[in-house]
C-alpha cells in the first residue's frame, strides 16, 4: 500500500505539487491523469525518491520512504518511462537483468528471470535476447522497458507515460498486454498519462490532477458519470463521454437472455466485447439488435438497442 499524506513539492518559489493526499491499495492500478505540468510526473517520481518531497509524508506499507536507503528503495520499485531509457550499450537480456544484478542475484537466477519475463512480455528469447535497443521497434523497446521494471519482482510498479510515444495501434496492444499481465501478477501500479482514454481503459482508480492539486479521484465510471468540474468534464470528453462510458461497459453486463424465437441477427458480439463496439456495430449494420455469442459461436444472449437507452417518452 502506498500512502501520500499532505505531500508537497516546491522548486524554489514554485509549487509543483500542492498538499496532495492519496492512498493506493495493494494490487490496484492507479492512474494519475492531467495536462502537462500538472505535477503528475513529479508525484510519481517522489514515490521512488528520484525527486524528494518537500513536505508531508509518503509511506510504503506503513514505512516512511525517507527511512530507506534511496538505492535500496528504488531496487524494490519497478520503474518504466516514456522513452524507455534502455541502456543503449547493453543487450536486451542485460537490460532486463539490471536490477537483479544490482541485487547480486547469482548468474543462473538472473538468466532464469530474464527468460521468464521475456516470455511474459511476448518477446522470443532467441530472437531478442542479444539485440541492442536501437535494433528494436518502439513497441518492442517498451516491452523490454516493462520487463526490466518487473525484473526483481517488485511489489510496486511506477510507469511514467510508458506508451506515450507509440502509435495508437501499438499503444492499444500494450495496454491490453498490461491488463493481461496485471491480472496475473497483481502489482500495485502507479501509472501517469495525459490521455484520459488510456486512464479510463487501465485504471481501477483515477486521480485527476491540475496545477499540483488533486481535482477528483475515484473509479473510472464515477469520474465519467460525475465529473467534479468543467475541467474534468473536458478531460473525459464532454459530449463524447457517452461513448467513453460505453467503452468501459461489457456486453455481458447489459445483454438479455437469448430468446429462442428471435430472428437470426445480422451481427454478433461476445460478452467480453465493449458496449462501444456493440453500438458501433449497430450503427454500421443499421440494426437495433445484436446476437451475443460465446467463443464457440453458441448463442448466449441478445442485445437490443432498448437496453442502452431508457426510451422515455
Amino acid at each position: 500500500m502506498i500512502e501520500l499524506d499532505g505531500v508537497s513539492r516546491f522548486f524554489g518559489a514554485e509549487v509543483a505539487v500542492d498538499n496532495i493526499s492519496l492512498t493506493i491499495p495493494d494490487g490496484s492500478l492507479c492512474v494519475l491523469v492531467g495536462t502537462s505540468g500538472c505535477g503528475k510526473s513529479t508525484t510519481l517520481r517522489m514515490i521512488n525518491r528520484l525527486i524528494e518531497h518537500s513536505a508531508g509524508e509518503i509511506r510504503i506499507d506503513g514505512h516512511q520512504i525517507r527511512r530507506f536507503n534511496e538505492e535500496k528503495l528504488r531496487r524494490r520499485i519497478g520503474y518504466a518511462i516514456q522513452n524507455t531509457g534502455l541502456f543503449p550499450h547493453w543487450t536486451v537480456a542485460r537490460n532486463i537483468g539490471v536490477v537483479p544484478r544490482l541485487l547480486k542475484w547469482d548468474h543462473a537466477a538472473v538468466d532464469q528471470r530474464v527468460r521468464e519475463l521475456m516470455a511474459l512480455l511476448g518477446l522470443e528469447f532467441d530472437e531478442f535476447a542479444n539485440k541492442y535497443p536501437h535494433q528494436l521497434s518502439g513497441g518492442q523497446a517498451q516491452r523490454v522497458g516493462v520487463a526490466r521494471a518487473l525484473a526483481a519482482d517488485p511489489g510496486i510498479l511506477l510507469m511514467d507515460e510508458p506508451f506515450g510515444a507509440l502509435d495508437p495501434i501499438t499503444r492499444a496492444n500494450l495496454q491490453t498486454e498490461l491488463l493481461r499481465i496485471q491480472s496475473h501478477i497483481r502489482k500495485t501500479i502507479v501509472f501517469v498519462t495525459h490521455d484520459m482514454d488510456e486512464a479510463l481503459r487501465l485504471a481501477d482508480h483515477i486521480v485527476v490532477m491540475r496545477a499540483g492539486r488533486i481535482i477528483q479521484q475515484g473509479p473510472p465510471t464515477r469520474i465519467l458519470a460525475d465529473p467534479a468540474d468543467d475541467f474534468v468534464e473536458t478531460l473525459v470528453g464532454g459530449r463524447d463521454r457517452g461513448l467513453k462510458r460505453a467503452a468501459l461497459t461489457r456486453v455481458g453486463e447489459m445483454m438479455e437472455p437469448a430468446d429462442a424465437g428471435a430472428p437470426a441477427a445480422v451481427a454478433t458480439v461476445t460478452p467480453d466485447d465493449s458496449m462501444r463496439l456493440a453500438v458501433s456495430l449497430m450503427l454500421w449494420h443499421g440494426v437495433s439488435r445484436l446476437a451475443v455469442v460465446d467463443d464457440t459461436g453458441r448463442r448466449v444472449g441478445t442485445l437490443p438497442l432498448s437496453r442502452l437507452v431508457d426510451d422515455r417518452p
Partner: protein
Amino acid sequence: MKRTNRVSLVLVLLALLGVFGLDAVRIQPNRIVAGTGYRLFEALGPVELLAIVLPLCLIAGLALRGSRSGAMVMLVSAVGLLLAAPWGLGAAITTLIEPGNGAARAAIGGGTWLLIFALVLLLVDLRQRLGLGVGGGLLVATAPVASLAMALMQGRLDALGLVREYLGRREAFVDAVVDHLVLVGLAVGASLGIAVLLALLMRRAPRIRQGTLGVLSFVQTIPSLALFGLLLAPLSWLVARYPVLESLGVQGIGLAPALLALVGYSLLPMTRNTYIALESVDEAVIESARGMGMGPLQVFFRVRLVLALPLIIEGVRITSVQAIGLAAVAALIGAGGLGTLIFQGLGQAAMNLVMLGALPIVMMAMLVDALLKALAGALRRGDADD
C-alpha cells in the same frame, strides 16, 4: 553498378603524369647539392616501364567499364604496383649511380611521390567501393609496407639519400622517435587526466564552464613557438627559486616547457570533447539508471562514462594527432624528438634529413589517427552499428 569509375580514371591520369611528367629520382653527387633529375622512363629499361604502364592502362580500362569484378582486378593491380615500387626504385637508383661512389645518393622525386600517392588513393577508393572489411583493408595496407620493409632490409634502397641519412645516425634516429613518442604520450596522458577533472568540475559548477573554455581557447591562439619561448623565463625562475625542481629534471628548456606547452594546446580539444561527451548522454538513460537503483558512482561508471567513451576517444585522437605535429617544434627548445632531425636538416640544407624527420611524424599521425578511429568505432558498435 556498371558505371564509369571517374575517380579511378583521374587517379590513373595522375599516376601517368608522375611517370612521364615529373622526375622520378634525383641523383645527387653528395648530400647537399640538388643533383640531376631523371624521369621514370629515363631511369628504367623498356620492360620495367611497360610493367608499370600496362597495369595502369588496365586499371583505366576497367575503370571505364566499372564492374565489380573489374574493381577487384584493379585493386590487385594497384597493390601489385605498390608491392613492386620499392624494388623498382632500388633497381633504378643502382643503375644510375656509378658503383663505388660512396658520396652519391638518390632522392625520391616528385614523379615517384605522385605515383605512390595516386596508387594509395586508388586503393582507398577501391576498398570503399568493394566494401572490404577491416581485415581486407588491413591486408591491402600492410602488404606494400611489408614489401618496402623487405627491400630496405635487403639493402636495395641503401643508395637512397633518406636511407643514407638514417644509416649515418641510426641511434640518434631511434632516440628521436622514442623521445617524440614519450613527449606526445606524456602530453596526451596528462591532458586527458586534467581534462577529465576539468570536465567533471564544469559539470558540477556550470559557472566555471565559460571561464575554463575561454582560457583554454585563449591558450590555443598563442603561436606555438611563442608559447615555448614564453615558458622559458617562468620555468627558469621557478628552478632558480626551488632547486628541488632541478633535481627532478625541470629546466627552462627541454622536456618540461615542451610538455607544458603541449598540454596547454591539448587541453581545449580534450576538455571540450570530454565535457560534451559526458553531457550529451541521453538524460532518459541516466534517469532510468537512477530509477533502477544504481548509486551515483554506478550511474557514472557503468552508464555515463561508457556511453561518453567514443566521443572522449575522439578528443584523444584529435589531440594526439595535433600533439604529434606540434612536438616537432619542441625540438627548438631542446626537448628532442623528430623535430631535431628536421631542424638539423634545414640548417644543413640537407632535404633528405628533413624528410627523415618529417616522414615518421606523418606516419605516426596517420597510424594513431587510424587506430583511435577504429577503437572509437568498436566501442560505438554496441549502440550505433548492426
